[in-house]
């Protein structure tokens, strides 16, 4: 029975190794979420668990409750970054995204600490969340995410943090944000308080394109995006886009949903030109749009 015992001891030691960097985050009514002491004085948590920006506190592993200030939040990746200057414990030991393998035994941890056991069930390439955030790698988990676990660490059997768990990005499956993504977004939030995204200044919704029109204009997809609002003075209006235009491609890539548009409007596109192909009065019209920066919405 030694093999089982040594695994058991490893798992318990992994929890103990990670525990000092796990905090309770009090930023919503009642149920605290979990945060990770990512760097000295910097705590990351799940954005959807931060409901107040005024009086945020964290409870450190040593039991002290400390004031925290919100450095920035990104709905796209469901990450919020807090500054907690009085935090003295060591920050988390961060793992390396390239070491993740399907089948690896992992622990999801919540403040307390509390533990949940499972495996990495699937890994995928770079993906975009339904809220428009860029995630470097899809990490899907087979484990139970208990209430209050969002924002907590996914750790490997040696107690290294290999991701941040959140239930805010997918309803059914359990996902973790890989370390590289959390660090990248944290850098950007600490620098400017938000994550920059490209912006066209358009409100659109999907419409079915009539078959004869598709055939005549050589459109590959059944759906296009009809423009229902044009932001006054915004990038699209300056490029001459009109209400009722149907967007079918950006830079030659077909678009049939808002995700397709978001995928071509990362922060790196700000200031560059994207060529929009729209259907107007039954004809193809090309319009170069200078991509702007998404205005910040106040919560």
């Amino acid at each position, binding site marked *: 029975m030694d093999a089982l015992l040594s695994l058991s001891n490893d*798992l318990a030691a992994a929890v103990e190794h990670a525990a000092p960097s796990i905090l309770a985050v009090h930023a919503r009514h009642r149920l605290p979420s979990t945060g990770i002491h990512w760097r000295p004085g910097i705590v990351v948590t799940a954005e959807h668990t931060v409901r107040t920006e005024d009086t945020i506190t964290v409870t450190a592993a040593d039991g002290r409750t400390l004031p925290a200030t919100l450095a920035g939040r990104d709905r796209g990746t469901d990450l919020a970054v807090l500054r907690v200057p009085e935090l003295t414990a060591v920050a988390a030991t961060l793992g390396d995204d390239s070491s993740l393998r399907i089948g690896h035994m992992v622990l999801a941890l919540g403040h307390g600490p509390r533990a949940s056991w499972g495996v990495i069930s699937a890994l995928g390439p770079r993906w975009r969340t339904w809220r428009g955030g860029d995630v470097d790698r899809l990490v899907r988990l087979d484990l139970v995410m208990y*209430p209050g676990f969002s924002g907590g660490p996914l750790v490997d059997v040696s107690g290294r943090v290999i991701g941040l768990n959140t239930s805010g990005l997918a309803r059914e499956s359990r996902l973790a944000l890989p370390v590289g993504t959390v660090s990248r977004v944290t850098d950007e939030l600490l620098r400017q308080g938000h994550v920059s995204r490209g912006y066209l200044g358009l409100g659109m919704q999907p419409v079915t394109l009539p078959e004869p029109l598709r055939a005549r204009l050589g459109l590959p997809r059944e759906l296009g995006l009809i423009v229902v609002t044009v932001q006054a003075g915004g990038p699209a209006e300056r490029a001459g886009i009109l209400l009722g235009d149907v967007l079918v491609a950006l830079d030659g890539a077909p678009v049939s949903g808002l995700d397709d548009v978001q995928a071509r409007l990362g922060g790196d596109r700000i200031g560059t030109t994207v060529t929009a192909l729209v259907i107007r009065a039954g004809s193809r019209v090309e319009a170069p749009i200078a991509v702007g920066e998404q205005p910040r919405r106040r919560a």
Partner: protein
Amino acid sequence: MSAIAAADPGATRLDAAAAALAEALARVTVEVRSAGARGRDRPGAAGGSLGAGVVWHPDGLILTNAHVARGDVSVVLSDGLARPARLIARDRERDLAALLVDADGLPAALIGDSSGLRVGELVLAVGNPFGLARALSAGLVHAVDRRGIQADLRLAPGNSGGPLADARGRVVGLNTMIAGGLAIAVPSEVARAFVREQLRARERRGG
């Protein structure tokens, strides 16, 4: 070379260790059938409730949950034979009951120290979920608090009263309920205290 042969030999040792432990645990686990039970433990057509219990002492002392042992109780030992059991103590507060069967030399559980449990350590449960005799579930310690031991482990109603054991096979708790997807177990220290109290009370009564 097959994928299995290529696998880390440590993994097969792990499997063998887990299987040996499961077997040892099944030997000290009994089925508890109770005619007077109501609610979710009632298996329906079969009549009476089906829970589990732990052989606490070789001379026939069996511990289970109070909510499993109601009315006329019988137990099925690991030899597959059903025996009538006498309900000698019941504490609804702690959800513990002590049963006595007329037997000796039973394979008894090794009782562990629940106060030494660490969050993250492996735990195993054996019981009769859905009437399936001596089925095993594996998980780990989620948290230990005033509610008892919380384990990240899948239980079903027929697990009630059965053992929760650590990676050494020592019984650290009696599975009692499922709350928010977690298994809640009465710690072995609480069960030990219950047994001590009952024995003392029986001595005083001269029983």
